[in-house]
């Protein structure tokens, strides 16, 4: 029997390796959506290219599977055109932090009300094992033959430094908490980053399930999410990597600040320009 009748798809050929963390992320998303009583027709998942961006192919949802690195601006356009839709931008670390790094910075600035889910396995999967922006120093690949020499990108610290309105990290070894974090991100009004640690069983022999289990811990229950400085200090911890919601603040979203949406949330396709007004304007020229 289907676990999530609204979202589950049958007879699909999934391109992920057995044991991949992506399966857990897919399940956590479906569970979160079910628990929040969201229907597939209300949801648009925008993704790029890689293994993670295939996620929306594997459950019932509206989908825009676009170019490598460009999910965030597409998601922004979708939300602008119809703010009534729940919009999730989903992809991997190479997609979102490498090719699309500039959009990551500027989507934070806009604080558009979308959920940004990043499958972070610290390696390139689909192109077969090269380093990603989040690979650790010393990580050896067929390209980085002597090991990675550049500092890994720290998405959590970047997001907090840029005052993103919701910044969280999850680990797919704990699906229940991952699902709860995704739920909180969906319920948050504004840009919400959920960076999800996941092992790549095919190409990353360093950052394994065991590695993440040993190297992560949950932020304590008394962690003050409203305190940006303390959130930042947690974000730059290196020996053990914290999980949970680092930072959250309440501020109007991008679309709420748009003049046209201050009166009503009527999507663009239902609005029509007054051509009589245009005619008059032209005649005055």
């Amino acid at each position, binding site marked *: 029997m289907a676990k999530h009748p609204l979202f589950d798809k049958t007879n699909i050929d999934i391109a992920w390796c057995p044991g991949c963390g992506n399966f857990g992320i897919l399940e956590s998303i479906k569970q979160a959506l079910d628990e929040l009583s969201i229907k*597939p*027709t*209300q949801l*648009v998942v*925008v993704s790029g*290219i890689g293994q993670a961006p*295939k996620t*929306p*192919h594997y459950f*019932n*949802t*509206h*989908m*825009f*599977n*676009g*170019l490598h690195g*460009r999910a*965030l*601006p*597409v*998601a*922004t*356009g*979708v*939300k*602008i*055109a*119809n703010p*009534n*839709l729940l919009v999730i931008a989903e992809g991997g670390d190479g997609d979102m932090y490498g090719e699309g790094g*500039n*959009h990551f*910075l*500027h989507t934070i600035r806009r604080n558009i009300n979308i959920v940004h889910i990043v499958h972070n396995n610290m390696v390139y999967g689909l192109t077969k094992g090269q380093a990603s922006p989040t690979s650790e120093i010393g990580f050896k690949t067929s390209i980085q033959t002597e090991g990675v020499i550049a500092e890994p990108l720290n998405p959590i610290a970047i997001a907090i430094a840029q005052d993103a309105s919701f910044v969280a990290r999850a680990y797919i070894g704990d699906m229940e908490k991952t699902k709860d974090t995704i739920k909180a991100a969906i319920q948050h009004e504004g840009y919400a980053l959920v960076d999800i640690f996941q092992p790549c069983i095919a190409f990353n022999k360093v950052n394994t399930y065991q590695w993440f289990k040993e190297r992560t811990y949950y932020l304590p229950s008394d962690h003050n999410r409203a305190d940006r400085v303390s959130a930042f200090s947690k974000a730059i911890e290196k020996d053990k990597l914290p999980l949970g919601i680092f930072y959250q603040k309440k501020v109007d979203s991008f679309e709420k600040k*748009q*003049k*046209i949406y201050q009166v009503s949330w009527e*999507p*663009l*396709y239902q*609005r*029509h*320009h*007054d*051509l009589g*007004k*245009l*005619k008059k*304007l*032209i*005649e005055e*020229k």
Partner: protein
Amino acid sequence: MLDISLVFCGSAGQGLQTIEYILTQLIKKAGYYTFATKEYMSRIHGGSNSSEIRISDHIVSAFVSRIDMLILLSTDTFPHLVDRVSPDTVIVGACHDLSSPNKKYMIDFEKIALEIGSKRYTNSVVMGFILAFLKIEASFYEPFFTQYYGAKSKELAEKNIVAAQIGYKAGVAFLNTNSISFYAKPSVDLNHKILLNGSEALALGAIAGGCNFIAAYPMSPSTGVLTQLASLSHEFDIVVEQAEDEIAAINMGLGAWYAGGRALVTTSGGGFALMCESLSLSGMTETPMVINLAQRPGPATGLPTRTEQGDLNLALFAGHGEFPRVILAPGTIDQAFSLMQKAFYLADKYQIPVIVLSDQFFVDSYFVSQPLDALSMAIYDQHIVKTDATYQRYQLTADGISPRGIPGFGDGLVCVDSDEHTEAGYITEDFEVRTKMVQKRLKKFELLQTEIAVPDFFGKKDYKTLIVCWGSNYFVIKEALDLLPHAEIGCLHFSQVYPLSREIIPYFTRAQKTIVIENNATGQLAQLLKQQLNVHINATLLKYNGLPFTVEEIVIALKKYTQDHENG
């Protein structure tokens, strides 16, 4: 016959643009035809810029080399225009150091402005001076100044009006002591006509096409369209977003179209180059897109504020893979408006990218035009459908067009994919599906043939020489032909450059000689005509120094071509 060419020359920051904006409005309102075009350097202060304003009793819409009166706002800007100065050119203004043999009248506009309080009023002094020549009096011009400057501050408006009045008196004194005048009683009523620059016409056309979202990264000369739509965004429910880069801009646009919006992006060559992968995404996902590509000379940064028609090939071949597209190239205000409106219709109906090719000369120039018909196209015949649970975004149909659903409108799921995809929109590597999908996308070309209007023809119907041009060269060739009433020349102007219709081949076969005139170095339209229609082109007239063609240049060239005819 009144036909005066005034050229104002000064450095960046001296307010030439304001002179152009206010004077053209006043001139037109007073009952004269006018046209204005500017050429400027890529800097915000200093340098040497000029603006040509034509005043006439008949329609004039082209750049002329001739300068009847040169008005210098600063002393060091003269060398910039020396090649265009003839013995008949009258020079007024900051000309005390000039050694040219022309009639020169030293008037220190800047000094007059300083006496009023600041040299920032120099341009208003100049405007007043010129208005005296046309007997356009204070009661007529003051409301314009009040409206223009009053938005910033009341004091600014008052000071500028004083500056204009003093300038006007200087003009009257000048006319009383010198036998120079170009006054002619205005003879036409232009109240029913409109005065717009190319950017404004494109922006208004976008609104007429239902545009409700613009995303762009500022880049000369494409920014004018963005500014125009921003200024109208509250009146017309338009969301305006300055994107972090051109890639973000077009992807936001695609996201908006996907979700039911009608998006425009505006850019120039370098920005468009960044958008190429996403243009291909529009083709693959069959998501509509409208792009204003305002050309400037390349390669790379080129001449950022100058003009060229060098990006036709870029627009034609941009984007990897094979997919249909339409390229439009307006040359008149009417075309800019109606083709931009049509661009939204074509993009929406055929689910393709549509590129509107403009250029610096066109977007920055002011033209007097017939009023535009905002209601000419049933634009709100939106080409979207309400989906049901069985909806498939890429359903195979006889004409290649699948009904376009949008998320949130109906019970179906709308899935689009940049990978090759099934009818339902999911990734596939099935070779049979691939073949069908390629054919489906390319089938739209056939249908598009029915939408492409034939080019405009003007000149002699029984021509021996056929001139072919596109985009912004419309008026310069038209005016040149008017000056050669006996020449057996016809002109074919393409405002829709791709795809081309085979119906136009007879125009070429009838000609003894065909000459293509373009603002580029390689004759890109000539190449396209040969490639697509296999027509014979005898010669090309090309200009690529960064400036538009002048009427004089075209006249000289056409005289030469037709003499060659007569000489066998």
